[in-house]
């Protein structure tokens, strides 16, 4: 019953976010600030993780090919498929749920605890639009980060495959080009847009409606990470079934 009530509150929150917009000059500045905080500020960790994940996928694929009849270009093929279909959109989103999600929950939660949200409401400001809408818009740039994650992940696989002695560069590149289906990239971007919305709104919900003090802000951040991850994983299954099934 509690979960149903939370889903209801979340839906009402999302509806309120799009009501009574803040003045555009102020909103523009808020959106640019959030792009800097949420997207640009996360590029380092996204690049770092993608590079090594790509490398690990390449090495593990290579180590599991014991049959000489299996072509060596499978390493490039498997790296491409794994990175584009799953690791870049989903794995990166789970990382973002931790990094960006906890930032969103703690910043909004602190504003709740210190009555800054009440101050906005008393002034007649739609606090949900002011606080959450810029985050949603900023997160629409997330597919660009996922595109970079794809590129870096595949590059990491190539480095690990070629310089680790598991594959020649030609074999790896041949595998990358083998049976390439452009819709897989579209599928990945569709997933990343949906996940971006989840990463912006679920932690905002946990921060906005939290009760208590500083300790509860920490608890809300942890809960937000758990629920954002759960929602991402469930939506990943549903979207995969809908788009590829």
């Amino acid at each position: 019953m509690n979960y149903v009530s939370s889903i209801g509150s979340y839906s009402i929150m999302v509806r309120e976010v799009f009501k009574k917009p803040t003045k555009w000059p102020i909103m523009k500045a808020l959106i640019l600030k959030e792009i800097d905080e949420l997207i640009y500020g996360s590029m380092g960790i996204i690049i770092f993780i993608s590079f090594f994940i790509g490398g690990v996928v390449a090495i593990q694929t290579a180590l599991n090919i014991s049959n000489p009849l299996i072509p060596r270009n499978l390493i490039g093929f498997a790296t491409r498929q794994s990175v584009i279909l799953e690791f870049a959109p989903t794995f990166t989103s789970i990382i973002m749920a931790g990094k960006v999600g906890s930032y969103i929950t703690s910043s909004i939660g602190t504003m709740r605890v210190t009555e800054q949200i009440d101050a906005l409401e008393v002034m007649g400001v739609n606090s949900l639009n002011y606080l959450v809408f810029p985050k949603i818009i900023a997160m629409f740039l997330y597919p660009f980060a996922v595109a970079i994650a794809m590129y870096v992940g595949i590059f990491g696989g190539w480095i690990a495959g070629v310089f680790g002695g598991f594959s020649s560069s030609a074999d790896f590149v041949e595998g990358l080009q083998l049976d390439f289906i452009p819709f897989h990239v579209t599928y990945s971007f569709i997933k990343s847009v949906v996940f971006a919305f989840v990463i912006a709104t679920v932690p905002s919900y946990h921060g906005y409606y939290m009760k208590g003090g500083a300790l509860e802000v920490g608890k809300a951040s942890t809960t937000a990470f758990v629920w954002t991850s759960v929602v991402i994983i469930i939506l990943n299954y549903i979207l995969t079934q809908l788009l590829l099934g």
Partner: protein
Amino acid sequence: MIEVNNIHKSFGENHVLKGISTVFDKGKTNLIIGQSGSGKTVFIKCLLGLFTPDEGTISYDGRIYSELTPAERRDLRQEMGMVFQGSALFDSMTVEGNVMFPLEMFTNQSRSEMLDRVNFVLQRVNLSDANNRYPAEISGGMKKRVAIARAIVMNPKYLFCDEPNSGLDPKTAIVIDNLIQEITQEYDITTVINSHDMNSVMEIGEKIVFLKDGHKEWEGSNKEIFKTENAAVTNFVYSSELFKKVRQMYIEERN
């Protein structure tokens, strides 16, 4: 003027406000006092429109809040200023940014016009050299002054203060009390203060509403509170030895 007529508010089984009626006059500092849990915060949140009463009406110069359209309510909110207990300044903005915020949100003034107004109100609260400092870099008393400056920057008709003296030393508390009273009289604002501070009650309580267990137990001025025989009021207001002696002296003087 704010007229409160028989308001009730419950949270589940908990009946917090039980039929409160009173009038808060314009140009006066009106104080709401009472023990913790007496319903003061819920009452002030109802006055601010943050909570909707289950029953009864609140009228702001003849405008009954529950009968207003959402747009009229928004307009009314812009006539209100609020000083929160913890000041509620925006951490990411400077003092100047905090005070300018309502102007940026609700007016079409140029940057220089807004800056002039901000500097004027900051001077009015005796805080003219802190424009570029962040809330974390200023003292509790300065934060309260910034909160007052932000609350009056839009020329509000109604000013609400929740425990404006909490966490302040007695000297600074008196300065803040006097500042609120001066601003109230200067700009002819209807000011409602939620307070625990008995010095404030004695100093600036032009009208005092005493709440007990969610209902209005007593109302009167800071002069009348000396004379009252209401046991609940005297037990609350004169709970300290100092105030007991002050009251005794007042009664002896009168006799």
